[in-house]
């Protein structure tokens, strides 16, 4: 198995490590860096539990090789707080009861982060399509949608 040295900006910190060419980004995060907030829920890129941001775009990290992230920036749930303050999405998921078992939550929040960046003032329908690559088995999505709406409002106010 050939090895490669990768340098990746992870949540603002530069990490350089040697990895196998086949190592998936999700395993790199979870097992090499012990950042276990990113979860694995399937083996077909269907569930979205492993969603992270790569150069600001949401990707399913079970379908990205670590070497593909070389020279890029990766943001995970662990990087969402800033200066000890929760991101509005984290706050809203709590306030709107947008999580139950919590397993899909990091992926949902990461997906919603990019979604709100592209569409800061979405309709409910747009949110539902926006998170349709992320599965939740507990909440029936009702309160996840509300949480994203609520976060959008907060973020709009912050901008204004």
């Amino acid at each position: 198995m050939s090895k490669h040295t990768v340098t990746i900006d992870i949540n603002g910190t530069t990490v350089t490590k040697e990895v196998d060419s086949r190592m998936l980004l999700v395993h790199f995060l979870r097992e090499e860096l012990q950042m276990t907030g990113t979860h694995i829920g399937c083996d077909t890129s269907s569930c979205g539990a492993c969603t992270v941001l790569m150069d600001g775009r949401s990707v399913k990290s079970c379908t990205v090789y670590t070497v593909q992230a070389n020279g890029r920036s990766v943001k995970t749930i662990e990087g969402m707080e800033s200066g000890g303050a929760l991101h509005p999405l984290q706050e809203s998921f709590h306030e709107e009861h947008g999580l139950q078992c919590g397993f899909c939550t990091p992926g949902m929040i990461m997906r919603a982060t990019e979604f709100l960046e592209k569409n800061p003032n979405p309709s409910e329908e747009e949110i539902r399509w926006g998170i349709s690559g992320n599965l939740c088995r507990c909440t029936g999505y009702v309160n996840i949608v509300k949480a994203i709406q609520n976060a959008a409002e907060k973020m709009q106010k912050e901008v204004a």
Partner: protein
Amino acid sequence: MNGPKTSPEVGGIGHRVKRKEDARFIRGQGKYTDDVVLPGMLHMDIVRSPYAYAKIKSINTDAAMAIPGVHAVITGDVLKQYNLHWMPTLMSDTQMVLPTDTVMYQSQEVAAVIADDRYIAADAVEAVEVEYEPMQAVVDPFKAMEPDAPVLRPDKEGKTDNLIWHWETGEREATEKVFQNADVVVKENIYLPRIHVASIETCGCVASFDPAEGKLTVWMTTQAPHAIRTVVALVAGHVGLSEEKIRIIAPDIGGGFGGKVPVYPGYVIAIAASVVIGKPVKWVEDRSENLQADSFARDYHMGVELAANNSGKMEALRIKTIADYGYTDAAANPSKYPAGMFSICTGSYDIKTAFTEMDAYYTNKPPGGVAYRCSFRVTEAVHAIERIVDVLAQKLGRDPAELRMQNFIQPDEFPYQSALGWEYDSGDYPRALKLAMEKIGYDDLRREQVEKRARGELMGIGISSFTEIVGAGPSKDFDILGIKMFDSCEVRIHPTGKAIARFGTKSQGQGHETTYAQILAEELGIPAAHIQVEEGDTDTAPYGLGTYASRSTPTAGAAAAKAAYKVRDKARKIAAHLLEVSEEDLEWEVGKFYVKGSPEQSKTIQDIAFAAYTNHPEGMEAGLEATHYYDPPNMTFPFGSYICVVDIDRKTGVINVRRFVAIDDCGNIINPMILEGQIHGGLTQGLAPAMYEELIYDEQGNILNGNFMDYLLPTAVETPKWETDQTVTPCPHHPLGAKGVAESPTVGAPPAIANAVVDALSHLGVVNMDIPITPFKVWQVLKEKGAAA
């Protein structure tokens, strides 16, 4: 119920307290099984059978063992040396841990590889060479019952057929007599297909055996850690694992829904590997393995008959079920109830005579029979009765709401003795249905339907007025492997008036850390924010049977109240000592004892807690704590009425769920926010089997959709906007008047959806459609009836 008794600061029952557990989950700091990492930990991966039924001619592990980083390849023959190749199931059947000669279903475990990391383990799985001799699989219980069918379990002495058991309840002859003399009889064959709970976290464990201490610690995805500890002690006692040296830790769990109750072979192999190798071993299954090999739900073929008189009064119910259990009965039912609580099938109706029987068969499919978010086969029972009531309404030309109202058990008839032996605790079925009809505008919808039909448009309205049976259960009838189905709470009040409470249950997303704290806050007056709730560690938590079948609030929730009462009993003595009055002179109100007629003389629970450690009466033990093991006097019977409106596209058969109103009654409500969340989720897990989910097998027993690309879980797009509300009819025998709620919607929703679709097509002569009702099925029906656009 009126408003909360406690202040928002105390946060007792009835407050929308935000969840305590969220703090770690929203930060990605939850600790799930796969997050556990131990020094020197090895990884296990499993070789699985490509055939549904085959002889194993040979297993060659040489190539796998030659891969650097591979520590062991474990086969059935290896486990046989320790007599660990078979294990008992919870239903007193037997299940292979690893096979020595025959595989019984596709994706069955054949061998396990232990390696330095998961990549090497996966390589080694590919390198294990297994030679099979395939045999013709039996994947259909109707084929399994044919006289010339192969006997699938020749390991069972004297077994000459594939019948696992026959079960019946009710009065066969009396029921037959009513049917013979009835004005009207309707009968339908209803199939509830095999489905999978598919929690987003799969199953797995980290087994760590410490040779010096002789102690085994297992972090695992289990809904019932204490029961697992006892099972491990019983199964592996002969190899030296004794119960005090076994610690099961259920860390955070990413959804359970019944799928994390059973003991899967992977857990046992990982434990055996850790004991033999002396290093921690992690096993976490893939999604495909989870769907293909872990316990299924449902798979009931039901022949359902209802007898009534011409005026619509229901007189008798009869159901004959053929159940497909796969190659072993590895269901998770209370021991005395092989068909679970299926005998709740008379539902919300006053049906005086009933009989139900069931034959369970072995087939070459994975074992299981777990609940998929329902209390032991209640979904099957509710689907049968709620569908057949609509069939009767259609036959009599009656409105299905009106027919239900006519036959409901009336509010003044509780406690109600059902024909199949249950004592329903409380209910007000007409109120729930009326509220659902008002909310959705039932009469207007019926008028709209008439107009649309005249224009050739397809619109349907479906009702489901279900009654559940949850909270297992009273010790005289309910046990698993002989262990009575009580549950427990231990609460300790610290000197500063804060508390820690531990329970025998285990949350998988239900929010116990919040709701249990609210119960204790209600009964002790200590703010919920200051009550730490812990579950899942068998070394610290009191014994309990775990969380499934909506049993946590009915059992452990009641135990919390009872433990709080014990604490209060002692607190009263301490307060009397501090206030220098007799105990009888004291009155309790939230958070304090005060002297009758002199309310300014009082001691708060915090004063009392401090005194319990600093100034307790002479002769009294120090400390303030209590433990209670709660044995429920009866089951609880949540109920509700759901109404669904669908529009169907005649060109494509696509069903649009336009509206769905769910009225639930689970007795008194602990936390309305969490309750609504549970109902949203349950409704979505009711939608899923009604419209999307089914595990499909071909005639050779190959699973055709054993991954998330092919097994469709509803996304946010498929899921409609649920409209929910509640009525409150308290449970008369639970200390808090609560009943349990999280499964009602999974149980109630599928027949509401099926009834709506059939209603949309009823004028074409459609009487029944089996779930999942897909656009293709609808389109086929429309084409057959000449109604496709």
